[in-house]
């Protein structure tokens, strides 16, 4: 097993910067997820860990050993591709045995190890098949077995669930987590799917255009996003993010969004935000961090329901204040009708504030 450390890692292709000065500590035995929209450099980063791409600048360390320039075959990593990349002309057994054969492992041992690993990923009955004769989920297990059979120090998974249907995805998610814990193997997983990231990760690194945005445990991404990008990328339905500025009237402070919406500033936060008066700010409130009531409250906002959208277990209630929209998530059984006027109660401790200029979070002491 291994700690992996990335130091100022940069990769350029011509004039395109795919990965831009990323530094990360990937802890031993944990699952670290590289998360971001497509084209954010997460797969490039993964391929640099595997040794397929060489970094343009910066270093990669495995347990304090600099591995720049060390070819993939000497890194002892297992890699599962998004396409699985199973050799189509080989049977499942030969696919899994391939890395061992190249290591010149004795035949008996190859057989034992292949059988052992196929038992773990539950494909023992498919050994004689060829990849073309299997479903996506089965191919995925074969790819996982091929990566694990050589007891790698580091397991790299590139979008392992994106080619599976929804139900299989949930099963496989649990399965990969189980196998990872059984082996206690350091794992780096690349995904664009935030649910996948949050459910599987011990730590998540959010990337945008090759730049690291935030590196933290998954809960923190939701509770304490470092900047507007992370705030908007994480969470479903997405966070309400409104351009705002601070106004003080009658000794009360408000976040004024557009011409018709004023969100009262909670007293605990006043101290922190008053210095920002007149500056460009962005206020963020997640739809699930507000509730709807008939009654007024100290910091509630009166709004008229513009539209109601049923999302299964929940309902998304859309309020309009002039050109500004505010969406609130409520349980599906709460009776809400279009055109109705209600009080919106933001949960005071869940209000996020960002500097519009550099998009970074402004801590509000609550």
């Amino acid at each position, binding site marked *: 097993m291994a700690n992996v450390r990335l130091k100022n890692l940069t990769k350029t292709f011509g004039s395109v910067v795919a990965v831009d000065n990323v530094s990360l500590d990937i802890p031993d035995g944990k699952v670290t997820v590289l998360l971001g929209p497509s084209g954010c450099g997460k797969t490039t980063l993964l391929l640099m860990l595997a040794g397929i791409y060489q970094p343009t600048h910066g270093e990669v360390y495995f347990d304090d050993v600099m591995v720049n320039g060390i070819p993939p075959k000497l890194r002892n990593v297992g890699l599962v591709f998004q*396409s699985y990349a199973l050799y189509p002309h080989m049977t499942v057994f030969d696919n899994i045995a*391939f890395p061992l054969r190249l290591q010149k492992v004795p035949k008996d041992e190859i057989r034992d190890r292949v059988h052992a690993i196929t038992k773990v990923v539950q494909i023992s009955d498919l050994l004689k098949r060829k990849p073309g004769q299997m479903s996506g989920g089965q191919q995925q297990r074969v790819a996982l077995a091929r990566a694990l059979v050589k007891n790698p120090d580091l397991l790299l998974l590139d979008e392992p669930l994106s080619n599976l249907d929804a139900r299989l995805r949930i099963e496989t998610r649990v399965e990969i987590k189980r196998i990872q814990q059984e082996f206690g193997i350091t794992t780096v997983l690349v995904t664009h799917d935030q649910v996948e990231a949050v459910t599987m990760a011990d730590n998540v690194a959010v990337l945008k255009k090759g730049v690291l945005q935030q590196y933290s445990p998954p809960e923190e991404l939701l509770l304490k996003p470092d900047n507007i990008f992370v705030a908007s990328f994480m969470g479903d339905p997405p966070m309400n993010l409104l351009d705002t500025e601070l106004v003080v009237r009658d000794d009360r402070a408000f976040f004024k969004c557009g011409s018709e919406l004023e969100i009262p500033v909670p007293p605990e936060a006043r101290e922190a935000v008053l210095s920002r008066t007149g500056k460009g700010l962005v206020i963020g409130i997640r739809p699930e961090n507000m509730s709807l009531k008939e009654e007024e409250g100290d910091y509630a906002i009166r709004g008229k329901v513009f539209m109601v959208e049923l999302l299964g277990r929940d309902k998304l209630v859309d309020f309009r204040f002039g050109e500004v929209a505010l969406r609130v998530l409520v349980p599906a059984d709460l009776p809400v009708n279009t055109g109705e006027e209600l009080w919106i109660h933001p949960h005071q401790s869940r209000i996020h504030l960002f500097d519009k200029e550099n998009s970074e979070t402004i801590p509000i002491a609550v």
Partner: protein
Amino acid sequence: MTKKRGHFMIFLLLAPALLITLTFYLVPGILTGAMSFTNMDHRLTWNFVGFSNYVAMFKDTILSRVFWNTILYVFGTLLLFNVTFGLLIALATSYIAERHGEKPSLFFRALWLLPRFTPPIVYGVIWLWILDPTRNGLLNGVLNWFGQKPVSWISEFPMAVIVLTNGVIGASFGMILFYSAITSISREYNWAAAVDGAGWLHRIRYVTLPLIRWPLLFVTAYQTLSLLTSYEYILILTGGGPFYKTTVWSLYAYNEAFGGYYASYRFGYATALTLGLVIVSIIASVIYWRVFRFREMMSEPKIEVI
């Protein structure tokens, strides 16, 4: 539309192609077949002599020599150049394309394609100059530079010469097919193999070659058949000599008919030889069809599902 009219339409649409096939392929074919049962010579009279041309073929001591020449020429050119060397250029240029971009790779491939574009006579004359037995030849000029005596390449190594000259042209066919097949292999297979511990030789052996199996087999079969019937470069370079050493079956038939080297105008015997070659080609095709299981390639698409 009635059924009858439907059939008529089909016939009408096929007619132009049928007409061309009939006039330029089937009729000459039948005439050739008929001619092989005559002893037609420069007087061009149809004088039927039964199977005597075929009997003569089995008694022809030169033909057995020609047969082995043909085998040596076809498989020598095929295995050394058309497949192996074509594959080497394809591998090298695809590696260059991956490392240094498409342009330098294209340059080298275009270079190997040049002989294809050169008119056969020009190409032959260039080789005649390269292999000239005097000091004016390119190779002997180089030898002379190092103080060596000139070598009469063509008369000393006739078979090697015709294999080399045909191979340099033939390699480009395989090169084009193999190159496109190699570059269409998903990069991820090679990456997966690299992570699995394969060096470049292992990757060629276990990833590239199995994945371009069909183009490999196709080039082998196709080029066998085209080499069996090709003789133009041999005709230009050696004329089949010295003393039948480079006479292959198709050239033997040509020489029997149109003289050239041995001026005989034995049209009857020449056509019998040609039909013999057709039978050899059919046997070769059937063997390839069976051994390489071409039916698989023909019947289902071989695009690998990823």
